[in-house]
């Protein structure tokens, strides 16, 4: 298997993990919005309310930075990272 194929396979796995986490916090948990809202969550807000106001939003920010770093590591591993002076 060529270097490029392996790189792309790893990239695709990372994409699937990223989208799975994205799916959970943008869609999955809101299937249970009514039930989840009965329980008190962070800072005393009901869980569902907290996720819509801060939780999901903040998780997306962290997720993107984590994704960017992981992808960078994959690129470096296979020597596809950009040179700094480019």
């Amino acid at each position, binding site marked *: 298997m060529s270097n*490029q194929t392996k790189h792309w396979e790893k990239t695709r796995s990372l*994409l699937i993990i990223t989208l799975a986490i*994205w799916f959970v916090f*943008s869609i999955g948990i809101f299937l249970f919005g009514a039930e989840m809202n009965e329980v008190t969550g962070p800072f005393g807000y009901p869980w*569902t*309310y907290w996720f819509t106001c801060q939780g999901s939003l*903040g998780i997306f920010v962290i997720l993107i930075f984590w994704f960017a770093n992981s992808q960078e590591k994959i690129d470096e591993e296979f020597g596809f990272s950009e040179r700094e002076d480019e």
Partner: protein
Amino acid sequence: MKRSNFIDNLPRVYGIYTGGFIGFIIVMAIAEQMGMTAKAIGIAFVAFTVFIYALIGWLSRTAQADAYYVAGRQVPTVFNGMATAADWMSGASFVAMAGGIYFKGYGYMALLVGWTGGYVLVASLLAPYLRKFGCYTVPDFIGTRYGGNLARFSAVVVLTVASFTYVTAQINATGTIASVALDIPFQYAVYIGLVSILLCSMLGGMRGVTWTQVAQYIVLIIAYLLPVFWISNKMGAGFFPHFMLADEVARIGELESQFGFVKNSAADLATVPKGLAGITKAHSAVNATPWAFISLALAMMMGTASLPHVMMRYFTTPSVKAARKSVGWSLFFIFLLYSSAPMLATLSKLSLIDPTLSTGIIGKSIADVQAIDWYQNWNAANLMFVSDFNGNGTLELNEFFMGGKAVVLATPEIAGLPYVISGLVAAGGMAAAMSTADGLILAIANAISHDVYYKIIDPKAETAKRLVVARVLLVVIGFAGATIAAMEIQGILGSVIWAFDFAMSGLFFPLVLGVWWKRANRQGAIAGMLGGLAAGTWYLVWVRTGGSGFLGITQLTFGIFGSAVSLIAMVIVSLMTKEPDKATQKMIDAVRVPSGRSILGKQH
């Protein structure tokens, strides 16, 4: 332009700018104490900020194609994040979002999740690859990846439909704020707004827009956060509202069950001015079905990843790596405002409805409320209304009506903050609407000038001539948008959501599959773009003209139907026709790795 001192000095330049702006706020606060009138403060805020933006636009003037189209590809990660945040957060986010949450609660907060979650798709599916491609515009990618003028032209059509729907709303918002702050009729204010918008973008193109957007972000975020923190502290609700408003949220729930949501009769409601609404939905309870919430969030997420004015911001970063990081910073800067909107809605609602607070009006006598200064002002502006439906002389929860915009614009005044804050908020709203309008007009004008004029009509045109065409188009599109905005056909928020649906109907799958599915070919992409756009538009028209719709897809989520049709059409047609040639396959391989030369040259 080489990587210059200017880029290295950016933190200092914008640091001084921020300091200067805070200084200006303080000067205005002192002037207010010394008797400057509210009207003069409003004018000073709007005029001063617009002057600064115009100055930046003039300083960024350029005669080079890559500076005009992609800001010379040297915008640092964090600054591009700020510019994207301003580009992204429109008049709707700034002026209408807190109001929407105030009136509709949970069902509306799907937009918060949708308008942030979409960036995960942008970062992982598209932005780095399109950056590697080296295109100037989104249709540039479609045209090169799939080949052929028809594919390129179809992308321009989708882009224009979506962005133009969006831009009329932004010019409308600019006009609304200018007309309130400068106290002139809306029909003229729209054109004043337009001229301010064009001043930022005409001379410098993307470069001018980038540096004004950073400046606009700084204004709008200060204007949004300062009142939230101030009101929270003044009310004793908590020093850091985001972490400390749980009691207030619970208190609103208590008051709601105490007052009850009384339904007004149709005859009573007919006396309420158009566009105003009362509180009819619980503040923090789950008041929408899972599908209603999820479908709206999903439509906004896929729309985010298809809107060309956002995507083209990531063409300006120095590298692929920087493009990815930049998406994270964009969302961080957006998060600062979005996470504050529900807090503002909470504070605003509690100050109005809690009878134990001095600012509360529910339970007071109608005559007393009608005598309050701010009530008279906002009533005169047709944004507030009370009426004694049950004739008991006291104001009930169902007898108080407000316009969505008033939640952001009027709350500082209601909570008893000095007028200087209201002036600041007006400047912030203006910055939000202007920055988005600039990004959108530029996206349309660039697509038409680069993709239709240069790539299709006259490929031999010289740079100077291309840039003249681009600028003429900028003005023409701006005026067309302003003319339609002056007619006030659709509300601000409605047209913004439609724009997302149009964009995802026609562009989401052709863009994503262009990178992630090698087998996707020209015929499939054209079928996907035109089929998706046609299907989405048909569904919208059908529902608007009394159609019942299906699967709970409404006129706000018609993109879900459009993009499904687009996906199916694209896959079937692609598989039925020949696979892309070797050269195209090699090009896709090159796009998938960050290293190496970009597909399109630096100047093209």
